[in-house]
């Protein structure tokens, strides 16, 4: 269309002037023309001719354009998308992200959960084991998180426990702006040792922790302290971490001295194999001191006594995770294999009946445990899992027994045992925010070795901010 105009006159400015000049000429033509020269009239005629051609071309172009638009509406552009305006500012706009986890379960066990304990391991006072029978609200969890400023972010995770108490699971800050791959975390946090230690209850693949975590860390080890992590600048994932804290949680105890109560170190490596497999391997070391770490037991005549361990506790953990997420075929499938091995040596003294006899002598133990589990998401909303747990309590060296002061029967909790458990699980996830889980375990943790059949139906719901989970 543009070409049609241009062919008439190169100079586009002239388009505006020409019609005006022509109109003036027409007006003049109405006046007596006697004074006009013949060549002037001819020029005017030519001008008029050109004008007519110009308008004809314009009208034709407009008509053809109209016809085109009517026949093909596809070329009508929709309003061009424009950038969004900045979001509104309000006092509440800076509120932290809040998410709430609601959990509850129904439990049915063939043996009394009250007499459940792990053979050969010192009771650690944690909320471990199959829990109570029948209906129960599990741990509901409230999480608040936000950036503090450009340099720090903060997180608080509080749990409402089965005893209707509010417990601060984690309350920490972490740095956002340290250079060279460093991150510093401080406050109370789940230690980076092992693989499952950092994972919150609602994200576990089974309703409970592996026996090894229950025995060695009363489910999970929380530090009140600081953690420094460094991520290597390589395409292979390599992460190193060090922690120091008051080590007030089992297997450590709160002490009165200055300085850190213990230290933990961990290293993780990981990567991909092809486009469907990913993996992570880890090794951790944790050393702490226990001071009068008390536990309840029954002596040889069946009376309740309180015994206490004082000494060094060293634990190391090896962990491995492999995930297969096929890229082709039915989407949403994933197989996750994971296993961990925990080993602990304790060396120090054991006090028998601290409130009574108060006998003290050397104590040494070497214990280990492992689990292996596989969880398969066979449809986007369904997962099935299998887990096997095994613990080896070893035979502790108890000075009071080897010295002939007390019989071994005076320490029933320390009688050697090899607890095992097999668990199957099926869960259904109607959405990302809800999960129903059915789990059955054949539990042989008690020292008599008899099986406890444990059935558990569990729900887990997430409300509020969309959580992001770690690998």
């Amino acid at each position, binding site marked *: 269309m543009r070409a049609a105009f241009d062919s008439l006159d190169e100079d586009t400015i002239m388009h505006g002037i020409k019609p005006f000049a022509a109109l003036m000429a027409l007006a003049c033509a109405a006046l007596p023309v006697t004074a006009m020269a013949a060549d002037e009239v001819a020029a005017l005629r030519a001008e008029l001719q050109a004008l007519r051609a110009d308008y004809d071309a314009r009208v034709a172009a407009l008509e053809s354009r109209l016809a085109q638009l009517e026949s093909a509406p596809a070329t009508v552009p929709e309003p*061009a998308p424009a950038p969004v305006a900045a979001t509104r500012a309000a006092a509440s706009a800076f509120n932290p992200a809040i998410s709430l986890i609601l959990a509850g379960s129904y439990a049915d066990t063939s043996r009394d959960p009250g007499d459940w304990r792990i053979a050969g391991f010192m009771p650690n006072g944690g909320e471990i084991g199959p829990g109570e029978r029948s209906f129960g609200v599990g741990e509901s969890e409230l999480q608040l998180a936000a950036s503090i400023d450009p340099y720090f972010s903060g997180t608080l995770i509080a749990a409402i426990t089965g005893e209707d108490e509010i417990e601060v699971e984690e309350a920490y800050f972490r740095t956002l702006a340290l250079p060279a791959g460093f991150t510093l975390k401080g406050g109370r946090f789940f230690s980076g040792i092992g693989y499952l230690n950092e994972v919150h209850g609602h994200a576990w693949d089974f309703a409970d922790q592996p026996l090894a975590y229950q025995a060695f860390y009363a489910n999970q080890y929380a530090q009140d302290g600081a953690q420094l*992590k460094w991520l*290597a600048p390589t395409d292979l994932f390599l992460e190193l971490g060090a922690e120091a804290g008051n080590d007030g949680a089992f297997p450590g105890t709160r002490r009165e001295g200055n300085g850190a109560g213990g230290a933990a170190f961990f290293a993780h490596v*990981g990567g991909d194999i092809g486009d469907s497999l990913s993996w992570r391997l880890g090794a951790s070391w944790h050393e702490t001191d226990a001071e009068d770490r008390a536990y309840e037991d029954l002596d040889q005549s069946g009376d309740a006594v309180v015994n206490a361990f004082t000494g060094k506790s060293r634990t190391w953990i090896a962990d491995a995770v492999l995930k297969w997420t096929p890229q082709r075929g039915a989407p949403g499938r994933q197989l996750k294999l994971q296993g961990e091995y925990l080993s602990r040596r304790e060396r120090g003294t054991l006090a028998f009946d601290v409130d009574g006899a108060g006998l003290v002598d050397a104590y040494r133990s070497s214990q280990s445990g492992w689990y292996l589990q596989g969880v398969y998401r066979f449809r986007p909303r369904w997962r099935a899992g299998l887990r096997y747990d095994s613990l080896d309590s070893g035979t502790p060296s108890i000075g009071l027994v080897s010295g002939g002061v007390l019989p071994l029967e005076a320490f029933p909790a320390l009688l050697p045992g090899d607890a095992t458990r097999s668990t199957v699980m099926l869960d259904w996830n109607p959405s990302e925010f809800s999960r129903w889980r059915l789990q059955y375990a054949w539990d042989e943790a008690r020292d008599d070795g008899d099986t406890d059949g444990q059935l558990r139906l569990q729900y887990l719901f997430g409300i509020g901010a969309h959580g992001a989970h*770690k690998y």
Partner: protein
Amino acid sequence: MKRIIGNGLLAFALLAASVPANAALRILATTADWGALAAELGGDRVTVYTATSALQDAHRVEARPSLIARARNADLVVANGAELEVGWLPVLVQESGNPHIQRGTPGYFEAASHVRLVEVPSQLDRSLGDIHPQGNPHIQLDPRNVALVARALSAKLAALDPEGAAYFAARAKDFDARWDAAIRRWEELAAPLRGTPVVIMHRDQAYLCRWLGLTEVASIEPKPGVPPSAGYLGQLVKSLAGTPPRVILLNAYNDPKAANWLSARVKAPAVVLPYSVGGTERAKDLFGLFDDTIDRLLEAVR
């Protein structure tokens, strides 16, 4: 001992600071489309690593170790935004220990904040399904959005690598011209598709429908992110009797079962669209993505 530690720390600091000045800008893109765009605009002044393939649902990716390692070394994260990656990108950025790509820093770029999002929910409640508070995040299937994001991304590249500003500007101009011409070509080609009644799988085809003027008569998902039940599909067949669709749209990463079932009942072909760069053999780059999408649609209605 102290001297050894001091020297060690110094060596370490030097090592950390000795990133070559003329190194290419390292970009971590969350999806194949934004990865492809970053490569188009950045040329050989950038290296691009893409976190998700077209056969993955970008919503379901995990913050796996290899991605954390890439995030650690990235100078720029090119994300889709509008909560598409909410389940993993925050963890990735947090675990990376990389101060340059934290949210709110110049190294964090979100495509969705440069276009106008549609389907911004007026009511926010999870009973409505997997809705996104800022609007529908699947913006890349409207090429006009890609053009807007390209302009913003090019400016971002120039800001992060000022020496390459002229280079990026030239590439952006070239891309813009080719993209503009391509949009006109696609719109012309797709003109016969205007008004075609279609059934979509998920809201991620909404921008394509709007751009090409396809008429959505139904969605296989009853609500965003909620898979259809057998009962719902039965109802769908009945309700579609009045407004029969010509085509059922499906993405390369979708499970085709429900769409195929419906296709046989309502006598409309189920067309697998690439959805993302790499989704089909022909969708090798952004141009191929739309070439293939439109050809497949035209083929289906022929």
